[in-house]
C-alpha cells in the first residue's frame, strides 16, 4: 500500500544523524529502534560480540560445549518411509530436535551466555514463547551458575506447562505476563522493561532473530551451525545440494540458521512456513508475509520488519496452536529475503500442523514440536509435486514432548485404529 512504501523511504533515507550510519540493516529492515536508555548497553554488547567473534578462545569454548554438552553435530536423516508414503521428492530431516533441551534454541542461548560471562554480567533475563528458549536459557544459566529470570505469557505458561516446570527445576524464576494476549510479544515487552530498569547489571538473552541490532545478526550467527553441518552432510550423503529447505518461522531463528549457508546457492529454494492459525483474518493467524493478512513493514520491539497491525499502527493479536510461532513480527533478515524473493514464505494452518505431527510420528517414529510440524506440513504438500530425484530438507527444530498436553486435547486417539 502506498503509505507503507512512503514511510519506508522516509525511515531509511540517507543522511543519518550523526554522520555515522546505523549498522545491522538487512536491506531496509532491521536497525535499532529502542529507548535511549538501552543504547549504551546495545553498544557495549555490540563491541563485546565483535571482540568475541575475533577471539579463537571464545569459539573453541563454544564449539567444545556444542559438541560435548549440547550434542552437535545433529544427524541429517533420510526419512525413507515418509518420502515413499508421499511418493515424490526425497525428504531429509535435520534433527535439531535431538539436541540437549530438545530444540535448536540452545545453540544461541549457549553462545549468548558465554558472551554474558565474558562481559561480567551475572544476571540473565530472557523471554520465551513455547518455553524452549526459556528452558535453553535456564539450562545454560545452571551450567554457568548465573541468575536467571524468564518472562513468559500466561497463556503460553498454561499451554506449555511442562516447560515452565523444567525452567523452575533448573533454578530459573519464571515470571508470568498477562498483558496483551499474554503470549510471546508481551513477554518480550516485559523482558525489555526489566532490561531498561536493570540495564547496568543484566544481560538479555533474546531467543529469536529479532530485536534491535546486534541481536538479529548475533542470533543468526549462533544458529548458522545448522546449515554449515547440513550442507556438508547432504554433500556426503547425496553428493549434491538439496532442491529446497523448509523451516518454520516464528521470529525466524531456526529458519535463518537452516537457510544461511545456502543463500548464495540459487538452485536451493528456501521456504519459510508461518503459522496460518485458524483463519486468514487479522488476529486468527501469525502469517506476517501472507498477502492481505495485515502484515506490513513497521517497528516493533526494536526492529523494522513486517508487523501484523491494524491501519492505525496498533499491533494485532495473533493466534497459533504453536506458542513458538505466535508472534506479530518476524526477524528483519527474513523481511529482506522475502522482498528480494530469495526465500518464499508460506503458511500451514493449525489443522495441517497437527496432522503433520501425526504423520511424522507414524511414518518415522519422530514426534516433532508443533512449531516444526508447520515445516513438516509444507513438506507433505510439496513432496508429491516434485520428482523422486528431487531433495527436500526439513529443519526439525524441536521435539514434541512439550506439546503432549495440547496434542491430547486436540487429537483424541483413544479407540483409533493403528495408523
Amino acid at each position: 500500500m502506498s503509505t507503507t512504501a512512503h514511510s519506508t523511504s522516509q525511515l531509511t533515507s540517507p543522511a543519518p544523524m550523526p554522520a555515522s550510519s546505523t549498522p545491522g540493516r538487512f536491506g531496509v529492515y532491521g536497525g535499532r529502534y529502542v529507548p535511549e536508555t538501552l543504547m549504551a548497553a546495545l553498544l557495549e554488547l555490540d563491541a563485546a560480540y565483535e571482540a568475541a567473534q575475533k577471539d579463537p578462545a571464545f569459539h573453541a569454548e563454544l564449539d567444545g560445549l556444542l559438541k560435548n554438552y549440547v550434542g552437535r553435530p545433529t544427524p541429517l536423516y533420510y526419512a525413507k518411509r515418509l518420502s515413499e508414503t508421499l511418493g515424490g521428492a526425497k525428504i531429509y530431516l535435520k534433527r535439531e530436535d535431538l539436541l540437549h533441551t530438545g530444540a535448536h534454541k540452545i545453540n544461541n542461548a549457549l553462545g549468548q551466555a558465554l558472551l554474558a560471562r565474558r562481559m561480567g554480567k551475572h544476571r540473565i533475563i530472557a523471554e520465551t514463547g513455547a518455553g524452549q528458549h526459556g528452558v535453553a536459557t535456564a539450562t545454560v544459566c545452571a551450567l554457568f551458575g548465573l541468575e536467571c529470570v524468564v518472562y513468559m505469557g500466561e497463556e503460553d505458561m498454561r499451554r506449555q506447562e511442562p516447560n515452565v516446570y523444567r525452567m523452575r527445576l533448573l533454578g530459573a524464576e519464571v515470571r508470568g505476563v498477562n498483558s496483551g494476549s499474554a503470549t510471546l510479544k508481551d513477554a518480550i515487552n516485559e523482558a525489555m522493561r526489566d532490561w531498561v530498569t536493570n540495564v547496568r547489571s543484566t544481560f538479555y538473552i533474546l531467543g529469536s532473530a529479532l530485536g534491535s541490532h546486534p541481536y538479529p545478526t548475533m542470533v543468526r550467527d549462533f544458529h548458522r551451525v545448522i546449515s554449515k553441518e547440513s550442507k556438508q552432510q547432504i554433500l556426503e550423503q547425496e553428493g549434491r545440494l538439496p532442491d529446497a529447505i523448509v523451516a518454520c518461522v516464528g521470529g525466524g531463528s531456526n529458519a535463518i540458521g537452516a537457510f544461511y549457508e545456502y543463500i548464495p546457492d540459487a538452485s536451493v529454494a528456501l521456504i519459510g512456513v508461518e503459522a496460518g492459525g485458524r483463519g486468514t483474518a487479522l488476529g486468527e493467524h501469525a502469517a506476517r508475509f501472507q498477502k492481505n493478512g495485515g502484515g506490513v513493514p513497521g517497528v516493533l520491539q526494536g526492529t523494522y520488519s513486517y508487523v501484523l497491525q491494524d491501519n492505525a499502527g496498533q499491533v494485532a493479536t495473533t493466534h497459533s496452536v504453536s506458542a513458538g510461532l505466535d508472534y506479530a513480527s518476524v526477524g528483519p533478515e527474513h523481511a529482506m529475503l522475502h522482498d528480494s524473493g530469495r526465500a518464499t514464505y508460506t503458511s500451514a494452518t493449525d489443522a495441517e500442523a497437527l496432522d503433520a505431527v501425526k504423520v511424522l510420528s507414524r511414518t518415522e517414529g519422530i514426534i516433532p514440536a508443533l512449531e516444526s510440524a508447520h515445516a513438516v506440513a509444507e513438506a507433505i504438500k510439496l513432496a508429491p509435486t516434485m520428482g523422486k530425484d528431487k531433495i527436500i530438507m526439513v529443519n526439525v527444530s524441536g521435539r514434541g514432548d512439550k506439546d503432549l498436553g495440547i496434542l491430547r486435547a486436540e487429537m483424541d486417539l483413544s479407540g483409533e485404529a493403528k495408523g
Partner: protein
Amino acid sequence: MPIDFSNKPGLVIYFTAGDPDLSTTRDMAIAAIDSGADVIELGVPFSDPLADGPVIQRASERAVAKGTRLSDVLGICKEIRDARPQAGIILFSYLNPVVRFGMEAFAKAAKEAGADGVLLTDLIVEEAGGYLPLMQKYDLAPVFLAAPTSPDSRLKAIAEASQGFVYAISRVGITGAQTELANDAQGLVERIKRFTKLPVALGFGVSTPQHVRAVAEFADAAVVGSAIVALVEKTPAADAAKAVGDFVRSLKSGS
C-alpha cells in the same frame, strides 16, 4: 514558538490521549494549561508501550481499546491549540503509529494541528536521518530522550539534534511514580547542559510538588506523567478536568 519555561518552576504535563476519552483529555489539557502547565505532552496510545510502567500501560490499553487513533490525537491537539494559543504542545508517540500514518503525512498533519514538537520514544538520533529534515520542513521541534546511561558522545548528538528542549530521563527504567528522585538526575542535566543552551526537562518518577520544586533547582522543567495518568485513572471522567487542574496548581506552586 510557545515552548517557554520562564515562568518557574517549568512544568510539562503528560496525558495518554483517549483515556478516559478524547474530549476529557482535551478538557484536562486545557485545565492543566490554565493551572500553570507550560507544555502539554499528548501521548499517542500504543498496543506495545515497552518503555512504560504499569500506570501508562493500563491507560494505553484502555485508550487503544476505545479505538483511539493517531488521527484522533491530532484532532484534539488542534482543539487544544485553538483554545489555548499560548501553551506548548508536544506529540509523544511510539514510532509504529507514525510509520503507519506516513512520516511526512504525520509531520504535515502535526503542524496543521498546531503542535510545537514531537517526541518519538523509540527513535534514537542515529535512526533519525529521515525524520529530522521533515521536522525542519514543517517547523516542528524534534525532542529526544537523554538517559543516565548515555555517554557524553551520545548526549552531544542528542542535544544537537533536539529543538525546543531536551527530555532527560531521571533514572534507568520505565515510566512510573517514585517516592524519591534518583540521585543521578542532577548529574545528567548538568552533563546535557554542557552541550546545549536548550532548556532541559526532567521526567520519569517526578510525581509530587516537592519533586517539582527539587527539579527546578537544577533543570528548566519537570515532566509529570504517571502521577497525572494515575489520577485520571481513579477519577470519574466528569471530575477529571477539575482534579487535574487542582493537582497541576499544586505542582506549580510547589506545595
